[in-house]
């Protein structure tokens, strides 16, 4: 021990407390509002949406519905009266999220023993026991229905896959994968501009791509009657929902 200038033993000086800068809290809280909360444009009474939202929030308090987008790999366990243990587990990539309010659905796709299987689950169905997100990954499109006409390797996911870890504060990564397709004919003409797909590697000849552009409707983005600005509605609903869920 050090000898102080006085000759007496020095009084114990505790080391200075470390200053913890929590980078997680410094970053802005990522806002996510599930798309089924946003009411569609129409002539329905807003009271109906308010009551539906109360029911949806009540279900979310009891059962955790994680944040997920199209392109995530999910595992869903439902109650099945005809299975051995009364549960049924299905793993798949989410290709579409549809519906508004309590009837919101999402479609999971997987290829099991060379057979493509798609199951449409309802988010608020009481038979669903658990939804686990196995892999977080956004894709370039909102709707991955073209995976039906893509090579089966892009839709196969291991049924016993381990969940890939993801930190809470990081942004959801976007996978810029360009998918290769089976030879034509496809179920829908995905090269046409109305589907606006960015995630396919089109190996079609130039003249076919040019011919597909004939069906483009460039006036659609300027159509004012089609505009539905949801930012303010989303803000209000997000505040309402997050307050209720904190209670």
């Amino acid at each position: 021990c050090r000898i102080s200038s006085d000759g007496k033993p020095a009084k114990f000086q505790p080391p200075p407390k470390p200053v913890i800068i929590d980078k997680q809290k410094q970053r802005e809280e990522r806002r996510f509002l599930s798309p089924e909360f946003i009411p569609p444009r129409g002539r329905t009474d807003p009271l109906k949406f308010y009551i539906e939202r109360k029911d949806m929030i009540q279900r979310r308090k009891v059962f955790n519905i994680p944040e997920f987008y199209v392109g995530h790999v999910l595992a869903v366990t439902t109650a099945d009266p005809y299975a051995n243990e009364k549960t049924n587990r299905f793993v798949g990539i989410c290709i579409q999220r549809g519906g508004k309010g309590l009837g919101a659905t999402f479609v999971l796709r997987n290829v099991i023993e060379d057979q493509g299987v798609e199951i449409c689950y309802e988010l608020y169905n009481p038979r669903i026991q658990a939804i686990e997100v196995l892999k977080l990954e956004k894709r370039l499109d909102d709707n991955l229905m073209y995976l039906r006409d893509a090579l089966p390797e892009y839709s196969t996911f291991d049924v016993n896959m381990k969940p890939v870890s993801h930190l809470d504060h990081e942004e959801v990564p976007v996978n810029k994968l360009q998918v290769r397709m089976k030879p034509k004919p496809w179920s829908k003409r995905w090269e046409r501009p109305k589907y606006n797909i960015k995630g396919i590697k089109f190996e079609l000849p130039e003249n076919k791509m040019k011919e597909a552009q004939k069906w483009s409707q460039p006036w659609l983005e300027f159509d004012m009657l089609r505009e539905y600005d949801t930012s303010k509605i989303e803000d209000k609903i997000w505040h309402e929902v997050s307050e209720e869920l904190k209670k």
Partner: protein
Amino acid sequence: MMPIWTKSGKKHAVTLLKVQDCHVLRYISKEESGGKTSKLLVGGKNASPFYKSESAMEIFKEAGVPRKQKVSTFNVTDDAIIKPGSTPLYAAHFRPGQFVDVTAKTIGKGFQGVMKRWGFKGQPASHGQTKTHRRPGAISTNKAAKVYRGKKMPGKMGNIYRTSFGLKVWRINTIHNIIYVNGSVPGHTNCLVKVKDSKLPTYKDCNKNPPFPTFFADGDEKLPEDLYDEEVFQFTDPSVTYA
């Protein structure tokens, strides 16, 4: 319309009906009306008093109630009479598990042809048909030498009163006065609708201990916010399992 799930996991579609400012307007006795039972005039949603003549407003002035958009009659037995004017009617008048008939004006489709209005098959699209694809074809026989009254022909379709019978009530919201009724109901969204106890013979003895003559809000009963039928899955419960 909304989905509703039962405790066994089945899904049913449900229509939401809101009871908005309903008041009893007048009591018509059996002798006065000339029918078998006495009648009660009930008015629905509040509306502006400036768009109707003085004679039409007399009923509302007598009852002391603002002008109502829709007025309908209910045949009532003598022990179920309610004093007109002061008593408002609430959604808690109906209870979950009851069966109900709903009457409303259907969506007006305007002047429609015979294929949409009556479901005729029309004629083929090709193989030589000259200007005949959606026409009624023959309208009568040779021997009849006339067209019968009520022959199905093109005309104005919709905008008439129709009833859906035997709809089950799944749930009632007492705060916002909303009745959740099974299945679909005639009429467009936000249209005015008349809800009655069902007249079907299978549901005659269904309603046990209804609020009689009606549910009075200032009475002693304090109802919870939501009344559910026994089979309805409430979202406060954990997920359904088949043990």
